[in-house]
């Protein structure tokens, strides 16, 4: 197995086995040694793939919970680093799959909302052009928002869940959920110019209440 600069030996079966045995006996020094040795590496590996610090921290947490929960299952057939790498990789892949599923769900919800709001029928070709531009800006805006913030927005405005339930589902504080909702609302309002109707001549009044409702629905 190759060795890397600044890292401990990559594979040393007796040392790995001794470390694991000590952790099973709840020896704090051994626990700390494993955590110190791999936390930074798991974090950076996750960050490279997830490209978001909060998501990478969540992956680190899930990885190490899995490591210590299943420490009894480690048999020494592979090196400890390989074993931890396998858990980290699976954790990150699961997060990526969940993020993709949320993106697809949001895309479906967005398309459904656009279809159901085709009552925003433009009256003139100029109206239609303005409407299309507004929708494109809204889509671009949503593309710039992180996955968990998109999920929060969808849970609130498409599924009408209360803040507390949303916070529980996304494992964030209620304050973070509220801040995120406010931020996305502001981005959308800016994107479609909803705050200043005079900037969007031809934005059909029929669509206005729906957009305002989606952006400013009351929070409990």
């Amino acid at each position: 197995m190759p060795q890397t600069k600044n890292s401990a030996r990559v594979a040393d079966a007796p040392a790995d086995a001794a470390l694991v045995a000590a952790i099973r006996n709840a020896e704090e020094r051994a626990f700390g040694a494993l955590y110190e040795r791999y936390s930074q590496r798991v974090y950076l590996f996750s960050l490279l793939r997830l490209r978001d610090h909060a998501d990478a921290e969540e992956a680190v947490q899930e990885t190490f919970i899995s490591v210590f929960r299943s420490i009894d299952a480690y048999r020494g057939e592979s090196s400890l680093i390989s074993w931890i790498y396998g858990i980290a990789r699976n954790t990150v892949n699961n997060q990526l799959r969940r993020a993709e599923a949320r993106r697809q769900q949001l895309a479906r919800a967005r398309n459904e909302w656009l279809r159901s709001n085709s009552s925003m029928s433009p009256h003139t070709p100029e109206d239609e052009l303005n409407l299309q531009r507004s929708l494109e800006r809204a889509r671009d805006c949503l593309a710039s928002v992180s996955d968990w913030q998109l999920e929060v927005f969808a849970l609130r405005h498409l599924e009408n869940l209360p803040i507390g339930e949303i916070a529980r589902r996304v494992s964030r504080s209620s304050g973070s959920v509220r801040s995120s909702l406010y931020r996305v609302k502001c981005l959308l309002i800016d994107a479609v110019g909803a705050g200043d109707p005079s900037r969007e001549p031809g934005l059909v009044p029929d669509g206005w209440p729906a957009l305002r409702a989606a952006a400013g629905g009351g929070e409990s």
Partner: protein
Amino acid sequence: MDEFREFLEADLSGARIDPKFKEELRRTLWDFVQGRTDREAADVDGS
């Protein structure tokens, strides 16, 4: 194999894990490990 090499060399990158998060997680994990051992000991005593 490339992914594993990235994992091995990840600590060569400049970005650092947030120290506050790292310490909070450490405490949480240690509580978990201790609690696990206490539960196992209780099972043995009770059997």
